[in-house]
């Protein structure tokens, strides 16, 4: 694949005696929107944490931007955005203060202007000075997305990005992802929401029982949508 930003090679991860990832191979190219589907307990969140360097793999290799993630974690982290179940926000701080703080850590130039622009982007500019503890789940998720892409990352990892979002916010998130990928940002989103997930995908895969059991390019996404349940069933032990 040309211009690969992420590659996982034969990644294994266990917690105690429970093997969660069993030889995952995965790659995402620049500007691609890869949506990884899977049932609960398939290992999706663990895989995303391994790819984000939050959890080391037991074996296998993760390459970010062509280099081993283990060798240059600070460089790689500066080029990654990550949004997990938890939007990583300080409840006692306002929306603007949260973005300015993370902008500071990422060395974002002209932080205040960039933070304000991102708040407009996710439709929270009218709540910029309100504390996050007063926000709904969906608003926190939108602010979490703004935090994740604040530093214009080249790769964005999303864990169940639609959780807590209403229909309008889901559409807005989809539009933002498509727009950013058009500018070269790669997305890897994991979800069990087949319909929403595949709506924005340019490539899709299925993770079941700790392995990638199916991959589809853009032309095969409709087939994946219709066969998803049977793919998962066949892969289950």
């Amino acid at each position, binding site marked *: 694949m040309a211009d690969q930003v992420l590659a996982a090679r034969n990644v294994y991860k266990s917690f105690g005696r429970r093997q969660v990832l069993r030889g995952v191979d995965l790659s995402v190219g620049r500007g691609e929107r890869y949506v990884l589907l899977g049932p609960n307990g398939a290992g999706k969140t663990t895989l995303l944490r391994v790819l*984000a*360097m*939050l959890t*080391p793999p037991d074996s296998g290799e993760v390459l970010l931007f062509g280099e081993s993630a283990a060798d240059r974690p*600070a*460089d790689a*982290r*500066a080029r*990654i955005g*990550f949004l*997990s*179940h*938890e*939007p*990583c*926000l*300080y*409840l*006692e*701080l306002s929306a603007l*203060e949260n973005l300015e*703080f*993370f902008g*500071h*850590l*990422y*060395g974002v130039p002209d932080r205040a202007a960039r933070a304000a622009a991102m708040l407009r982007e996710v439709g929270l500019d009218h709540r910029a000075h309100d*504390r996050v503890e007063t926000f709904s789940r969906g608003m926190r998720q939108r602010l979490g997305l703004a*935090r994740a892409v604040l530093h214009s990352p080249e790769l964005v990892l999303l864990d169940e990005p639609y959780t807590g979002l209403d229909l309008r916010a889901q559409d807005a998130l989809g539009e933002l992802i498509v727009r950013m990928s058009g500018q070269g940002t790669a997305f890897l989103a994991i979800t069990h929401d087949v319909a929403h997930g595949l709506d924005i995908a340019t490539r899709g895969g299925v993770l079941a029982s700790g392995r990638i059991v199916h991959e589809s390019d853009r032309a095969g996404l409709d087939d994946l949508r219709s066969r998803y349940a049977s793919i998962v069933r066949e892969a289950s032990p």
Partner: protein
Amino acid sequence: MTAVLAILAKELRVEMRNKQTINAYLLLSLLILASFRFSLALFDPDYQTLAAPILWVTIFFSGMFSIAPSYRREAEQGTRDGLMLAPVPASDVYLGKMLSSLVVLSALEAFTVVVFLAFFPVDVPEPGALVALLALGTVGFVAVGSLIAAISANLRQSEVMLPVLLVPVLLFTVVMSAVSGTAQVLTGASLGGVSEEARLLAAFAVVFIAAGYLLIEYVMEG
């Protein structure tokens, strides 16, 4: 250094808005001092002699409550991942949080000292020396306390594990030296007269800061 200052400012802002830590410290130190005051009043003891252990036990146990939430809150709110993902060294996170705890604890100690002097009939012939010992002891306390707070935040029952891990380390290092030096200062010794204790406290502070700085990356990776 800019990340350290950003983390310091964030910590102080969160702390001032949360106030749970500050309120818990103030209430606990008041209760500890009142407990000593009323229980010892039965025996009419020599307060000048007992003053140093009373003061440091109060600071020590109240202080644990001001240090503990710093890392635990990050784990509970899910912001720990945000810090670990940021392209800043874990040592910057440690230094920012440690400096914040130092600022907060120093301010709270001033309250403790004022209440202590109001509760107990104690003379402070060398106030400068007392302040110096308090400052040195607090730096060591906060340095190791921040590291152990980070360790305990990864554990189940972190509220219990923090004192279990922290007390043995601090009791035979910072607390003993601080109590010994403070006792001498309260009976008239100058800072020069307690230079051995002051040097020990400074050495503990340097060692604990270095340990925290070097180990925090492994601790935060859990």
